[in-house]
């Protein structure tokens, strides 16, 4: 498996290497209808976030800031542990903390979920994006924002079922987790996975990650979490960021992780039927006008009309109102 790293734990290659995927590996490109087929099929990759192993240390957030060289603002405490308080253009990933009392055991559970781009197989952001090449998807599944093509319209936000992209107020471009495509391209795992002290975040091929998850789920079931499971929602074609949840039957308790995410039908119809019907309507309107212009005589004012007007103004008799032939 030379095209994808299988783990983020192993040390990165020490020799410089050329990027092992790029423009030629695109399977989707925003606002591009004639994308040539990719030259090859890369092995799909995935990041697996094991919520049950996560200690909420925010090392992933820190690593993300460091690697992407962002500058999150120093905010204030609002009575919670989340800082910043939401994803921002400078914070692509965020630990979300939920204090949940399990009604079955009456025990408190502190659910800590690392929020960020899920890298949907069917990405709503890409579907919504109007700027050619601003959002791309590689054959390994990574959904990447190409900032120089981004126009800052915010359509990706409307397309995303997970509320992930954020537009910078400074440069008016959209930002989100790239799954460290720049690291993955040179044989390394994402920065967050590399930094995670408990290996709650692991990275590799999607197949491997599913297998790893199966082992974790079996362990959780043995510890009494009967509903432990993998979050790989089919509504968006599966995701390249997956969660192991102790309560996979209730994803919404993890800071409103959507139960059945999918691209909103509004967005679907906006980008689908509306576009085609709209173009057709405008086209027909224009064509109809032209046809009428060609075939119908122009509606001209006649000599008689002018005379009648002159007579009317001069007080001379004119045809009375309401009398049309």
């Amino acid at each position, binding site marked *: 498996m030379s095209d994808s790293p299988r783990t983020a734990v192993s040390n990165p290659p020490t020799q410089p290497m050329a990027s092992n995927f790029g423009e030629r590996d695109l399977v989707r490109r925003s606002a591009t209808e004639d994308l040539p087929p990719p030259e090859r099929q890369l092995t799909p990759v995935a990041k697996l976030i094991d919520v049950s192993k996560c*200690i909420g240390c925010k090392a992933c957030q*820190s690593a993300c800031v460091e690697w992407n060289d962002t500058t999150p603002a120093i905010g*204030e*405490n609002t009575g919670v*542990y989340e800082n910043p308080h939401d994803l921002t253009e400078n914070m692509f990933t965020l630990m979300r903390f939920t204090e949940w009392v399990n009604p079955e055991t009456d025990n408190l559970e502190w659910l800590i979920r690392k929020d960020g781009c899920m890298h949907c197989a069917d990405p709503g952001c890409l579907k919504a994006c109007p700027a050619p090449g601003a959002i791309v998807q590689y054959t390994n599944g990574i959904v990447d924002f190409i900032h120089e093509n981004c126009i800052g319209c915010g359509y990706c936000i409307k397309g995303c079922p997970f509320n992930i992209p954020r537009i910078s107020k400074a440069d008016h471009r959209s930002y989100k987790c790239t799954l460290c495509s720049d690291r993955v391209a040179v044989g390394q795992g994402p920065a967050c996975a590399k930094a995670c002290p*408990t290996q709650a975040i692991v990275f590799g091929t999607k197949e491997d990650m599913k297998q790893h998850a199966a082992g974790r789920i079996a362990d959780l079931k043995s510890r009494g979490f009967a509903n432990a499971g993998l979050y790989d929602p089919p509504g968006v074609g599966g995701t390249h960021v997956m969660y192991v949840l102790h309560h996979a039957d209730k994803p919404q308790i993890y800071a409103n992780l959507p139960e059945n995410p999918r691209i909103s039908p509004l967005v679907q119809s906006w980008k689908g039927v509306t576009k085609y019907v709209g173009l057709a309507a405008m086209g027909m309107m224009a064509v109809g006008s032209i046809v009428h212009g060609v075939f119908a005589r122009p509606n001209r004012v006649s000599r008689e009309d002018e005379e009648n007007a002159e007579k009317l103004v001069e007080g001379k008799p004119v045809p009375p109102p309401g009398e049309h032939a």
Partner: protein
Amino acid sequence: MTNSWTDIRNTDLVVVMGGNAAEAHPCGFKWVTEAKAHRGAKLIVVDPRFTRTASVADFYAPIRQGSDIAFLLGLIRYCIENDKVQWEYTKAFTNASFIVKEGFGYADGLFSGYDEEKRDYDRTSWDYEIGEDGYARVDPTLQHPRCVWNLLRQHVSVYTPEMVERICGTPKAKFLKIAEMVAECSSPTRTMTSMYALGWTQHSHGAQNIRGMAMLQLILGNIGVRGGGMNALRGHSNIQGLTDLGLMSHLLTGYLNMPTEKEPDLATYMASRQFKPLRPGQTSYWQNYSKFFVSFMKAMWGDAARAENGWAYDYLPKLDVPSYDVLRMFELMNHGKVNGYLCQGFNPVLAFPNRGKVVAGLSKLKFLVTMDPLETETARFWENHGAFNDVNTASIQTEVFQLPTRCFAEDQGSLTNSGRWLQWFWPGGTAPGEARPDTWIMAQIFLRMRELYRKEGGAFPDPILNLSWEYHDPNEPEPEELAKEINGRALTDLTDPNDPSKVIVAAGKQVLNFTQLRDDGSTMCGCWIYSGCFNEAGNNMARRDNSDPDQTGTHPNWTWAWPLNRRTLYNRASADLNGKPWDPSRKIIEWDGTRWTGYDVPDIGVTAKPGEVMPFIMNQEGVSRLFTRGMMRDGPFPAHMEPFESPIANVMNPRMRGNPVARLFESDLAQFGTSEEFPFAATSYRLTEHFHYWTKHNRVNAALQPEFFVEISEELAALRQITPGGWVRVWSKRGSVKAKAVVTKRIRPLICDGKTVHVVGIPLHWGFTGSAKKGFGPNSLTPFVGDANIETPEYKAFLVNIEPSSAPGVTS
């Protein structure tokens, strides 16, 4: 740590109590998740708060801060009552069978010999009966009423689950569930590890908290085995190195003692350090004390340390008090008896209790020198920062010298981790501006002082003029040179005692390790326990071979661990009396009929026969101590003691406040609050997002946790009408702070002795320098009292009051 971080993956049960490993040691905590993921290990957390560690625990139980001894003795009682004892281990490897002197007793929360006036015990009754042969008397049948086992059994009998609930506030059912899980580890094939940190040490009875768990681990047979042990998680990456190298006023290096005034000459000093074995055939390794001591003196003063002058014994200071710990130094500063302070890599304005007293002390100094890579509050203690440091600058006459140093990432050297691994590191960057290595700064101060002494003389210039200073560049000793000095070398040819013609180590060569040290002045060694770190094989601390044969977690060729590269202390105890591992799947070493072999360096003479030489070779008894004799000031067994500021009275003796023998200074007595005035039980702690007071200087960390807050329960918020995210004022008898309120389900009120106890959690990362929002530390509130044995301040349990408030007014 008796074991190592990597060994934790071998455990079956992790008990995190007195610590919050996931929060404060997230990188080391990975080994807990490894144990859980690969061994199916369980994790128990006992803490006043539902912590980040609790968030991944299999079982959590709340406990009132400062009541851990009752909980631990309750566990010991449960194991004894339910016959959940690793009997073979307990009988053979502990002093359970040793007979204690007549006259020893315990009543009303106090042991025999208490003198209320002196606040001290006469400890003579806390010892073994010595037979005519000079050895301690034992009863291997454990029938003798005064054998340690029966005394222990009687001592813990009061700590029933009901009593534990009454004192600790831990619901009985939860306590019993934990007791059951712990007791399973009495099986020779199940081990439990204890991971603790400052949640146990920062109490006026901190050392006894640890004793409680150590005793439990001993009767479960969990000391010396893989996946077991007493694992102190150190709060700094090199705090282990600090104590190892004797950066405490009462210690020399390698836990040798600083002499006291009662030991005016070497003969007297050595007389009390003979360490004669208390049982036949035992090693009592401290018998070699003089070899380590003389080699240390040779490292310090070279040729000036000679047999005739008692190896320059007179050069050593003689303590007139048990220790000049930081608390005492600040007390003396406040009395005008300490005039100058060299403050190196330390920020007492935020790190030491009763900040008002700390700042008052600094304000009375003639000079203060700070050495730090960062702008510390201590260096700026004189600067007015409005509510955050409300001092009258004009009234402070202290001259402050702020010397910027390199930070660890810009320097090279070694750090000693919790697992006693000396790990060499290399600079990752270049220091900015005028930052200089600490060694350069110290050398400059020394060289200039020596010059002054040379020119002007003085009362006793000899120790300074004769200090050994043989460095390539006297202005800046190199880390390697210092490491070699610490390892030690032969000063003359060392010959084989059995064959004087055979040279073992030639003069000038590094010694292999401390077994080659001698007390005749032919060797020098800066720190005997570190001997072996940099020998003729090279810098062993720089080794980076992470291989681990058979995945035992030993990693013998990764850096170097003291002593002798041994990864698990007392590892002889991992095998039974015949030398066979208790659990063959968890072998560390075993007796192959002629010698000890295995994965780790045996913690016993390699040819010492099992059954003859017992595993605890540092002890005169050869076995471990359930009863510590007179070695601790506050009792040979742990006993329940309340913090000095406690929401409830001591149920054993309501008159008793705190630790009855903890040192108290007159002025601090008046500054203890009562539960009437300060009804809420506060505790202080770290957060993962920060490291102490350093990372608030880093924008990334500051963004991840920007502002000072306190944590309270929903119930306390309702009681005091505090809104989540709103401002509160928290105050104690000693000071007042303002913070944002985090109202959480993770803290619940406890019912202790029939009273509702509300807990207030106060993290410690904010001050008035750095990138984060200005804030306060818990040390504005905490009491100026330390542990009775080691003077670690009581940060973890004190009393406060709380009310809604407005934002702190900032005038600057």
